[in-house]
């Protein structure tokens, strides 16, 4: 199943079960979603439940919140995270705070989905990652899954929860393929142990997880060591227990992410790791990120702005040598 098909299936199954679930977003109905995630759902559930909205992101999210207040269970799609900036007031001042300010009188069973990331030459206004900002907001659950199986299970869980959930996808993952059984027992709040190892804990998520995995053999061969690779899946809350276990075992930690270095999501993970596990660490942590620069259109510049399999390999090997491996 493709990543986008897994998302589609999760939505479809849930909508079939519960007629309070409503889908809304730009081009989600007639077109079936820019990335085809909502394909076929208009035909199945009709235009009262699958809504094409105007280009008005503030309202799209704001309306979703109001639907949830009114007793529905909206799944809101933003075409990309780049446009979520227009809805930050609704996401942060309303979606994340209404339950708390009302002392739980208001429940917001809603999911806000959006893809992000550097795709291919979409230019500076269409290539950003905002999980660093969005994960820092108390009151929201934030998933960012990198595999079709997790896409399916985490999205189903998100839809079923009565709390507001942000569900971040990566534009380059939609056609990723994986076979899995729908009967697996996956808890999306638990980090996924992608590969076991003993010498370096490498943490990642979304597309960078795959890029890292693609060169892990070479890194191990070069450094003559064994790497443990962890896919975070839930960016807030973080499964710190799993991270702690792994870091205590390996004594070394690396995080690989696509966002700009300054104030990146990974800074939180590294900071947590050294505050908590400083005396378990044998080496300086390594944080591989995007550069602090808007994403240029030109492909060479674009690729020079983010980690790629080549630079991930190069940088981890360089760091590993310096870190006594």
């Amino acid at each position, binding site marked *: 199943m493709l990543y986008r098909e897994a998302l589609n299936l999760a939505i479809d199954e849930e909508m079939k079960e519960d007629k309070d679930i409503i889908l809304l977003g730009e081009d989600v109905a007639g077109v079936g979603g820019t990335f085809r995630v909502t394909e076929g759902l208009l035909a199945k559930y009709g235009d009262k439940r699958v809504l094409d909205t105007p280009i*008005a992101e503030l*309202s799209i999210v704001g309306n979703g919140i*109001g639907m949830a*207040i*009114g007793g529905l269970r909206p799944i809101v799609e933003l075409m990309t995270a780049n446009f979520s900036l227009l809805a930050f007031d609704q996401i942060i001042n309303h979606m994340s705070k209404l339950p708390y*300010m*009302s002392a739980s009188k208001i429940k917001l069973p809603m999911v806000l989905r959006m893809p992000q990331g550097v795709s291919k030459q979409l230019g500076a206004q269409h290539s950003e990652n905002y999980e660093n900002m969005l994960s820092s907001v108390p009151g929201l*659950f934030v998933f960012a899954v990198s595999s079709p199986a997790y896409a399916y299970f985490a999205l189903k869980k998100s839809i079923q929860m009565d*709390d507001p959930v942000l569900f971040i996808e990566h534009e380059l993952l939609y056609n990723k393929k994986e076979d899995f059984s729908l009967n697996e027992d996956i808890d999306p709040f638990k980090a996924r142990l992608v590969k076991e190892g003993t010498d370096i804990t490498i943490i990642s998520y979304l597309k960078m997880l795959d890029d890292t995995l693609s060169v892990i053999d070479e890194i191990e061969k070069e450094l003559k060591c064994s790497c443990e690779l962890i896919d975070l899946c839930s960016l807030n*809350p973080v499964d710190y227990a799993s991270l702690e276990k792994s870091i205590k075992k390996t004594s070394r930690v690396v995080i690989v992410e696509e966002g700009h270095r300054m104030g990146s999501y990974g800074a939180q993970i590294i900071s947590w790791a050294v505050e908590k596990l400083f005396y378990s660490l044998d080496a300086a942590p390594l944080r591989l990120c995007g550069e602090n620069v808007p994403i240029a259109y030109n492909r060479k510049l674009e690729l020079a702005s983010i980690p790629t399999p080549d630079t991930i390999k190069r940088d981890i090997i360089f760091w590993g040598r310096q870190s006594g491996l």
Partner: protein
Amino acid sequence: MDDELLEDLYYYMLLGRYFEYGAKENYLQGNISGFLHLDIGQEALSVGAMKAFEGDVFTTYREHVMAIARGISIKSVMAELFGKIDGVSKGRGGSMHMFSPELNFYGGDAIVGGHIPNAVGCAYARKYQGIDTGTLVVFGDGATNCGAFFESINIASVNKLPILFLCENNKYAIGTHISKVSSFEKQAQKAKIYMPTMEVDGMDVVAVYETVTQAQGYIKEGNGPIFVEAMTCRFEGHSISDSNQYRSSQEMELCKAQDPIEKLKAHINKDVAKSLEQKVINEIEMAVKFAKESEEPDIKDLKKYMYTQEGLKHVI
């Protein structure tokens, strides 16, 4: 309009007025802090609308009187201002954030215009659920200049949503006069192309009650959205910390001459009026006492209401 209803409107306006007096007094005594946006002078709109409208309500930070007229107990509203555990939001919300889903009262929002898209979404839910009472959203003249408002009237219109947009036009956004930020004094103009509009004297509670009733009738018939503009006048500064220097004493005099409570009083039996006033004074006293005696929230419950019970389980 029958006497009983008139008395009820009178009682709630008075209750609101004295509530605000009590809040002000306790603010100055240091029992209440933060923002305090008094509704004094604008009770006709708050009470008239709440009493006339049956469906869901979304409103702004200037909400005490609406909350009370909606049926939230003055004790729990006052206790909220005191930040206490018996407050309607258990001390978490404060003056600007009061909610009562049982009474279809959904706040209280401190972001100008921020609640309007939420009200539109709720109206969608009601239409979907086949509930015809619809949704009422109250906002100021200043809010009609922000994107959230404009997007909302457009969306409500194209989807024919059961929603009443009620603009409380007191001509000021804090200290900025409407003429500096809009080309026209009547903000209903902005909605005309999207839906029918009505205007009402916001200082006349009977007129407000009747207009809102009529507007709700329109909604109930499945006609879609409607816009009501109420011209009002606030007697105090924008919030308690606003010195109100941008309005001349002459302007303030004209404003206060429209006192909605005085206006209605002429139609109320003198003895009844008198006994209602005494009743209200006692009630406010009790509410303040209640608020004073209520406990502070426990610090160990700091995060208690962030998530649902199930959600909390996933947070370490």
